[in-house]
C-alpha cells in the first residue's frame, strides 16, 4: 500500500503537491466569490446565500468537483508528510551547532509544514461548524423553505473569539499561499525567466485578495450584526 503511494522521486511528489495545491487555490477563489454574498443586506443575503448553498449541494458537477477537492486535500496532506519524513532523513541526524540558515530565506517558506498543519486543524473546525451541520445535522429553514445556512454563519460570527480564530487562521493561510502559489509554478517548471516577475506579482495579488476577502467576511458580520428573518 505504502509502496504504491510513493511516487518514483521527489520531483513527481512535488508535482502532485503543486497540482493539488493549485486546485485548492482555484477552489478558494470560487469559495470566496460565493461567500462574498454574505456581505449583502441581511434579507437579500439570507435568501440568496441559502439558494446558492442549495444549488451547490444539488448539482452533480459540483458533487464531482467536491470529491476531487476532498481527494486533493488528503493527497496534499499525505504527500506533505511523506516529503517531510524523507527530508528529515536526507538532512541526517547531526545538525549544525550554530545555525543561521534562516537568514537567507523567508520564514514562511521554511515553515510550510507547520502552516499547513494549522490550516488542516482549522479545516476540521470549519467543516465541523458549517459543512457537517448543513449536510447531516439540524438546520432551521428560511422563509423560502431552504436550509438556513446564512443564519448558522451569522450567529457563529457574533462570537468575538470565533471571529478571532478565523482571522488568525486566514493569516496563516495567507502566508501558506504567499509561498505556495509561487512555489507550485516553480515545482511544475512553469517559471520562465521572462515571466517570473509577473508570476511573483500574480502570487502576491492572489494571496492579498483571498486573505483580505476571507478576513473581511467574519469581521464585517461581527460589526454589522445582520439579523436574519425568522
Amino acid at each position, binding site marked *: 500500500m505504502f509502496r504504491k503511494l510513493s511516487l*518514483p*522521486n*521527489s*520531483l*513527481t*511528489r*512535488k*508535482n502532485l503537491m503543486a497540482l493539488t495545491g493549485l486546485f485548492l487555490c482555484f477552489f478558494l477563489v470560487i469559495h470566496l466569490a460565493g461567500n462574498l454574498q454574505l456581505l449583502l443586506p441581511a434579507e437579500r443575503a439570507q435568501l440568496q446565500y441559502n439558494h446558492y448553498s442549495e444549488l451547490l449541494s444539488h448539482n452533480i458537477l459540483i458533487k464531482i468537483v467536491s470529491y476531487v477537492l476532498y481527494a486533493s486535500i488528503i493527497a496534499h496532506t499525505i504527500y506533505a508528510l511523506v*516529503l517531510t519524513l*524523507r*527530508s528529515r*532523513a*536526507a*538532512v*541526517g541526524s*547531526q*545538525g*549544525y*551547532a*550554530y*545555525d*543561521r*540558515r534562516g*537568514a*537567507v*530565506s*523567508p520564514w514562511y*517558506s*521554511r515553515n*510550510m509544514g507547520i502552516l499547513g498543519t494549522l490550516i488542516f486543524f482549522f479545516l476540521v473546525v470549519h467543516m465541523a461548524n458549517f459543512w457537517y451541520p448543513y449536510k447531516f445535522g439540524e438546520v432551521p429553514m428560511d422563509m423560502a423553505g431552504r436550509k438556513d445556512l446564512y443564519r448558522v454563519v451569522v450567529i457563529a460570527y457574533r462570537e468575538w473569539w470565533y471571529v478571532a480564530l478565523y482571522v488568525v487562521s486566514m493569516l496563516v493561510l495567507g502566508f501558506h499561499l504567499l*509561498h505556495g502559489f*509561487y*512555489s507550485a*509554478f*516553480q*515545482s*511544475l*517548471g*512553469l*517559471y*520562465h*525567466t521572462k515571466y*517570473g516577475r509577473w508570476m511573483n506579482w500574480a502570487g502576491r495579488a492572489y494571496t492579498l485578495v483571498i486573505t483580505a476577502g476571507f478576513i473581511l467576511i467574519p469581521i464585517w458580520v461581527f460589526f454589522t450584526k445582520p439579523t436574519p428573518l425568522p
Partner: protein
Amino acid sequence: MKIQLKIWRQENARAQGRMVDYELTDINPEMSFLEMLDVLNEQLIQKGDMPVEFDHDCREGICGQCGLFINGRAHGPQEATTTCQLHMRHFKDGDTIYVEPFRSRAFPVIKDLRIDRSAFDRIIQAGGYISTRTGDAPEANAIPIGHDVAEAAFDAAACIGCGACVATCKNASAALFTGAKVSHLAMLPQGQPEAAERARKMVAQMEAEGFGHCTNTGACEVECPQEISIRHIARMNFEYNRAGALKK
C-alpha cells in the same frame, strides 16, 4: 586580531565528532579564512596535535573544493563567496567563530571538516554530459549559438559543485546543483539529443543518493558562490516533466 574558534573535530567517518575550542592570537585581518586555518594547523603540528583537516585546492574561488559552514552559514557570512575568498577582515577582533562541515546524509564526514561529495560526481555521471565522437577539436563556429543563449547557459555552467546549496537547504536538496547541470545542457543545441534521458537519469540519481526535495525557499541561490538562480531548478523540473510527457 584575536579570535576564538569552535571547530568540528571527528576522527573518521564512523567516529563520534564534537566541537573543540581553539584560540588564535595575532591573526592578520588580510588573511583568508583558510590561511587562518593554516596558522592554526601550524600551531597544532608544532604542539604535536593532529591538524584540522579541510578540503581546499585553488584558493581562487573557482574549484569548488573548499566549503565550510562558518557561523551558521554556508561559506560564512559573506554572500556569493567561497570559503577561500572569505577574509578575516569580515570578522571582529575577539569574535567567536563556529566552523563545521557541510551537513547532509549524502555528504558523509570523512574527517574533521572534510566531507565526501562523490554523490555529486555520480549525479554528473548519470547524465551531465553529451555523447560525442572526440576527434579533432571542432570548428568553434560550426554550430551558431546566440549570445544570450550562450550567456544563460554559462550562468548555469558556472556551478563549481561546492555543495553549499545542499548545506544551506532545510531539506538537504541537491536541486540547484542538478538543476544547473540539466539546465546548462538543455539550453544548448549540443545538449538537445539527450535532453530527456539526461533529465530522467540525473533526477533518478539525485533521488538514489538520498538528497531531499526542493521546497523553493531560495536559500541556495543566496549562498551559491556563483549566484546560480533557482530558475534553473524550474527548468530542470520542466525538462523532467517534458521527458515524462513525451516518453515513448
